[in-house]
């Protein structure tokens, strides 16, 4: 026994040095003349697992003469890893993709943990050129913090996409002789007819939980509240005419909103399971088996359901945003999105300028911007003299569609790496139907409003706002659920609710926001 014990321990001791690799990574400083070496965090979505041999990744690396160590971090824990790297400063990578300066990052930026990249605009000529070309100079000003600087190179959109909205069984609309709904009252009527024909169903369901419904429908009522509210405050909303915040959670607009959805809930028109996040399969199940006939979700997702359903003539269609008391609006979107950040540590590298220039070229040069979207000419697509894009047969004939095929096979259109989004170029990857809906929505005017401006907080104001935000948000969530399900009466308990929100300081919270605009 003793022999075996000692042997076992010896064996373990011998094997252990095998673990001691990985410390050599700090030696990633560039050697002059050769490729520039740096490390980069990538947020990895399990539906599109990163492959280092993707055509797009290789092309970008080669075109900029870069040797990138891609650190692939699962999306579920990406923010934790980034937060740790920025907070401690140790082990931070040289470049972090898919970041903004909302929330915690703005404090970190103002306290020097992140490079103010706007100070180095001479080194980002490609980024500057794309911003100018797409007319986004004003949009860039919106991401500046209190000190007037911005701390990341955002992704750029010329026209925000209408990527999700009311999705309804087109075949049933035809069968029952109904027009496609244009307003929320129409929607109520349609759902009511659906329910009459199949009393066991809950006609309207939602993918991924109430937040998707709220963020897509509230803007038509003039508010945006909850976990994915456009302002990020959860309880305040933006008045687009007066250009200031108002306490949306206690406004009459919200009262009208919750009254409408309570009515749907009470009459069995709205899926009661929506309080829990409904995952993709359950959602597909409900629609494919006819237990639900309408939903709020994203266009990308409906193809799979149509393919799986055994119902004859099953056809889902996405419609433009429905009009409510405040007009027809989809969730507000910014023309800038998450982008590229440089931790402070990177600025201490001798070749910092070269890194910034390389990253700028990799993601924002005209050629690479196009490449991240369409792939490489001759391999994934061809172009005629007029610039019309023709995809190769493998892409055109792929059962999953051009967009998804290019994504999984070549890494095109990953929102982590693609920084330049030209709507017209994007639409070449989608079917005519989607392009048509987008065109329709664009013609309707301001369906997709811009995201409200983020106040320029200093540390103290940010701290104070944070103190109000969480209790208000919790209280709203609680009351909202109660109002929706009827556990509290909107008529009788509304004043108690407003009083509670006021005692939690919703008006003061709103003042802090308006004062720091």
């Amino acid at each position, binding site marked *: 026994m*003793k022999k075996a014990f000692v042997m076992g321990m010896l064996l373990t001791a011998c094997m252990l040095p095998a673990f001691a690799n990985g410390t050599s990574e700090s030696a990633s400083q560039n050697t002059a003349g050769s490729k520039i070496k740096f490390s980069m965090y990538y947020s990895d979505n399990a539906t599109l697992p990163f492959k280092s041999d993707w055509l797009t990744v290789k092309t970008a690396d080669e075109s900029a003469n870069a040797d990138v160590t891609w650190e692939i971090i699962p999306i579920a824990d990406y923010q934790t890893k980034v937060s740790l790297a920025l907070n401690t400063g140790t082990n931070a990578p040289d470049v972090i993709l898919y970041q903004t300066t909302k929330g915690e990052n703005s404090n970190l930026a103002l306290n020097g943990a992140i490079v103010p990249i706007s100070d180095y605009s001479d080194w980002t000529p490609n980024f500057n050129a794309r911003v100018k070309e797409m007319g986004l100079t004003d949009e860039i000003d919106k991401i500046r913090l209190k000190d007037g600087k911005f701390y990341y190179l955002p992704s750029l959109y010329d026209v925000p996409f209408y990527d999700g909205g009311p999705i309804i069984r087109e075949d049933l609309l035809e069968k029952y002789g109904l027009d496609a709904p244009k307003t929320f009252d129409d929607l109520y009527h349609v759902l009511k007819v659906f329910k009459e024909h199949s009393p066991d169903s809950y006609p309207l369901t939602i993918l991924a939980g109430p937040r998707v419904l709220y963020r897509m429908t509230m803007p038509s009522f003039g508010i945006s509240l909850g976990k994915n509210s456009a302002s990020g405050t959860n309880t305040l909303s933006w008045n687009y005419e007066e250009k200031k915040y108002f306490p949306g959670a206690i406004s009459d607009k919200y009262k009208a909103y919750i009254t409408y959805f309570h009515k749907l809930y009470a009459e069995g028109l709205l899926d009661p399971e929506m309080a829990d996040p409904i995952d993709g399969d359950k959602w597909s199940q409900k629609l494919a088996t006819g237990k639900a006939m309408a939903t709020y979700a994203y266009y990308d997702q409906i193809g799979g359901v149509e393919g799986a359903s055994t119902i004859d003539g099953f056809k889902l269609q996405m419609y433009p945003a429905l009009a409510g008391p405040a007009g027809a609006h989809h969730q507000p979107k910014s023309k800038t999105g998450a982008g590229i950040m440089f931790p402070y540590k990177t600025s201490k590298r001798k070749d910092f300028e070269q890194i910034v220039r390389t990253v700028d070229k990799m993601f924002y040069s005209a050629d690479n911007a196009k490449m991240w979207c369409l792939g490489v000419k001759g391999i994934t697509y061809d172009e005629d003299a007029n610039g019309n894009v023709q995809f190769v047969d493998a892409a055109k004939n792929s059962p999953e569609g051009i967009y998804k095929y290019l994504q999984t096979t070549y890494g095109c259109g990953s929102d982590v790496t693609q920084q330049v989004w030209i709507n017209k170029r994007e639409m070449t990857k989608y079917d005519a139907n989607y392009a048509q809906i987008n065109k329709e929505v664009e013609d309707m005017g301001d369906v997709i409003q811009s995201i409200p401006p983020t106040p320029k907080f200093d540390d103290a104001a940010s701290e104070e706002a944070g103190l109000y935000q969480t209790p208000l948000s919790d209280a709203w969530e609680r009351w909202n659920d109660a109002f929706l399900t009827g556990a509290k009466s909107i008529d009788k308990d509304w004043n108690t609710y407003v009083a509670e929100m006021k005692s939690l300081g919703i008006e003061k919270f709103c003042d802090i926001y308006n004062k720091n605009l």
Partner: protein
Amino acid sequence: MKIYATRSSRILDAAINIVMILTILTCLVPFIYILALSLSSPRAIVNNEVFLLPKDINVESYKQIFTYPNFFTAYGNTLQYTIFGTAISLFLMVLFAYPLSKSWLIGNRPLMKLVVFSMFFTGGLIPNYLLISYLHLTNTRWAMLIPFAINPFNLILLINFFRSMPVELEDAALIDGLDYFGILTKIILPLSSAGLATVGLYTAVFFWNDWFNGLIYLKSSQFPVMLFLRNIVNGTSMVGDAAGAADKSTIGISIKGAVIIVTTLPIIAIYPFLQKYFVKGVMIGSIKG
């Protein structure tokens, strides 16, 4: 002598059996359901045709997860962390627990208090991270093994186990000329298989399931497979800044099921092999008179 079952004892037996069967079903049914989902076609799942038996049996989901770029690397990493982590942990804990089980040793009580203290109070995430970082353990696999080698709860289990050994056994060994190291390796350890198996299992399960430490201390090529599982099962149902993007992407439940099966089966499979150590009455007959 034959024992005749009385009516009441038969009823009691039946009740016990029913409770046991229900308990087994509670544990087993979800697992079988997930297994069935992982082997069914997405079409059958979406049409709600799968319950305990797979429909349109295929192994597409398994094929697909095996083509994920880092799956096997991550799996290998987890195996390494579990095997070496448990070995190191048991080695260090045995050497720590044995002296602590001797209450007459000087310094025993203050040391014991330190151990118990660390059970209730920890440094917190950032200080821990900085400590590991200053020790140059981040981005090395040691970061998974060393900081968690001694778990105070398991250590106390082991101390109590050693304490329960009859002191006469050691006295006899001392008289026969063994030193304390000899007593530990020749007498105590062979008699402690139940205790070691219990603590070893707890430790192995800890290392197998641990994803958070892997996430914060390691680089992506060293990530354990549980991070992979988490991303597939949780990555698409999140809230926060990235929620917009995550809500758009859904992962088939058959793939989720396949990943759950592949990543949990090995550790579950260990239990039957350790079972015999739990039930063996090690101490029976070791002392006469």
